[in-house]
């Protein structure tokens, strides 16, 4: 099986029904993708497949239909994506465990909707749980990231 993750192609031998989440974490050692619920209820495992936000716990490895981007591929500590910069500026994270998934969801939203309304943000981000309750800061950071990405 062949998978492209963060621009690197991997040749793998795994059961085709193993969820992408576990292939990323346990086979490829890409740990920014988190296990939270295993049933698409929390969004901690969110990645982009062909540019769209997907719950990697629900995508069998054999069904991956395009290149995969994880939070590590969105930006790096030295070269942060606008969404990551906004997350840092707003000091969003508490435990931080959900935030990789939150940022991937936000980045996908902003790539499709550069100037989302409050309602758009609520709708797009509602599937990503944060048990620490950082939602007020997530809302603010999404708006800041939108502004940065629009270059205004």
């Amino acid at each position, binding site marked *: 099986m062949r998978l492209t993750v963060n621009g690197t192609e991997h040749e793998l031998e795994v059961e085709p029904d193993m969820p992408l989440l576990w292939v990323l974490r*346990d086979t490829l050692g890409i740990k920014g993708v*988190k296990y939270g619920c295993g049933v698409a209820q929390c969004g901690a495992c969110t990645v982009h497949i062909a540019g769209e936000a997907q719950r990697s716990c629900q995508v069998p490895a054999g069904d991956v239909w395009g290149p995969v981007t994880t939070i590590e591929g969105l930006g790096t500590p030295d070269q942060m994506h606008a969404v990551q910069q906004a997350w840092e500026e707003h000091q969003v994270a508490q435990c*931080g*465990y959900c935030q990789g998934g939150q940022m991937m969801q936000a980045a996908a939203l902003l790539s499709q909707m550069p100037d989302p309304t409050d309602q758009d943000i609520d709708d797009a981000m509602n599937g990503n749980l944060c048990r620490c309750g950082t939602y007020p800061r997530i809302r603010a950071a999404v708006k800041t990231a939108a502004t940065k990405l629009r270059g205004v």
Partner: protein
Amino acid sequence: MSRLGKIARRTFLIGSASIAGGVAFGYYMYQRPAANPLLDDLAEGEAALTPYVKIDASGITLITPRADSGQGAYSVQAMLIAEELDVELDQVRVDPGVPSPAYYNTALATEAAPFRSTDDSFGANATRGVMDAMMKFMGMQITGGSTTVPDSFVKLRQAGASARETLKAAAAAQTGMEASAMTTRAGKVILPDGQELTYESLAATAAGIAPVQDVPLRDPSQWRMIGTSVPRTDIRAKSTGTQDYGIDFEIDGMVHATVRLNPRRGLGAKGFDASAAQAMPGVTRVLGITGGIAVVADNTWRAMQAAQAVDVEWETGTPYPEEQDGHWQVLSDSFVEDRLDSRNRDEGDVAAALEGAEVIEAEYRAPYLAHSPLEPINATVRVTEDRVDVWTGTQIPRFLQSEITKITGHERDQIHIHGLMMGGSFGHRLEPRVVQEATEIAAQMPGTPVKLTYSREEDWTHNDTRQIAMARGRGTVANGRVETMDLSIAMPSVVESQMGRIGMSMPGPDLQIVAGAWEQPYRIPNYRVSGYRAPALAPISSWRAVGASTNGFFHDTFLDELIHAAGADPVEERLRLMWHDTSRKTLEAVAEMSNWGEALPEGTARGVAFCMSFGVPTAEVVQVSLQDGAVKLDKVWVAADVGTVVDPVMFENMIQGGIVWALGHAMNSEVTYSGGAVQQQNYYDSEGMRLAQTPEIFVRGLENADQIRGMGEPMVPPAAAALSNAIFAATGQRIREMPMMKHIDFV
């Protein structure tokens, strides 16, 4: 290292740190400092100036023994040391260090002693002193009870100051110049001639001199960090997906395990057939462990899949009622004299006041609740003949050592706990279970590191939940005033359940049964709070705010009922009844912030609530509006007094998150039992709050209190009461049971 060097350092160790390891008896011994654990592991040229600061040629490490579950504990501890040490946070490494009695938690004792936090009398302080000695005796290196900041506030600044002055003394020894003429800045000693020496370059010299002790702390006017927002030490990693948690830990040769335990809590397996599981890809072992079975595989998912394929015959019969109704019945039957656990508040003459009067009565319920931090519990353990290594996120490293000793027979000093970042806790990681189980598995595979990861479903099923609780209120009003408030609370003892699991007991009444109720700063003519200890039911544990998480709801909702019955204004009547000035100011602040009393649009209403818990007076106003008969959360205002706000951004984030936590659970969540097992299996059964329900949350930190307090929990107890009171104001419907969605719809 030369033998001479070693002896010299040992001399320094004994001279500066007195008793080495272990516990000494006799009260005066408790007052002597515990040994500095960093001295056991130092390499040549390293200096451990206090148990909190380690410097070598390559850098400065600040030791932050309180665990970080997301509350920013590492960052705030580092900030307190750095304030006096004169280093910047981007110059230092932060390390949780090793479990040691040197890191005992003093502030936790303050909360455990049976005095109101408003009571500064000699008797109260003397008893707190005894409790402090007890904590030190037990070496309780615990993170919890909103104690990290109060416990660290003086201790860590003193550590920073002592290290700073020792480095100056080292510079004096090295240069022959006067230490008193030197200054420090950004990790350097600046000599009178302007020359700068890095702390690292002074480490070897510092290691050879006696630490300078009893350094006066700087006046608050000189603080450069405290009171300002300093970017958290982990913020870059957590904003880029590069923060590692316990679940991400990797080590050579590691295998992956998961468990399946009897869903009837506390029972085990009669037997199991593993043949189907053994044949699955990657599976290496299926083992019997306490409470059920474990599967070991080469991958987490394969282990979880195989665990489901094991055919287990479970033991049956539970030590608690099989069905939820039975749990409520036990509580309902517990309001009897021989279950009375404490009645520390009994003022006026409640019996006489209720006799023949028109009595207002109400009964309240609060359910079991899971902690369910987003990172499922996990631990990696390696057992060899002469040592045990544990890599995990935990709030109780010292207790883990004791528990492992019981399983493997290793001595405490052979057990190495490596604390890792936690993806949330809320009290969940005060429990040793996952480490005990990982140790049982690893002990059957000597030399192999075993990472045990719970599935979300298993985590939910075996969560030691919040207590279930019930309260009954009776009261009277007259002439527009509250005259009598008699509140009785029944719950099983959290302390008994939690301490019992690690083979310990706490004598006397369990004040968590009445916490958040008995010590409220009101003067009501006839005022009584009684705690009834229900028999043990399902296993329970400390859930954010512990006893006060249920009791703040009971006490303040009932008070609100009485105030409405009296026809008084909810803010004014609370203020009239409140004697404690600092508390009054929080209520006044929240009234001012929310513009309490202003005209609101049709269908919009507000509720106010107050609770002092963990020593922090906290007042909250919730505003709701009605949309097609459903309640929408609009806004929440919070005013809390912690004495000193160390970092205003972390403070605000913590309070906003705590409000989301408290309201989300009050509205939407519960844990219930059927057939002896927990019914909720994943977040779809009990999801707390999501983003779309989140109100705007406005926060003000007050600094009138003369003692610094922690803010991890005190925002929780008033929140459900303020919401219930707001719903009453909007609809006339009193909601006396959580989750409130059982009684009303939310948008």
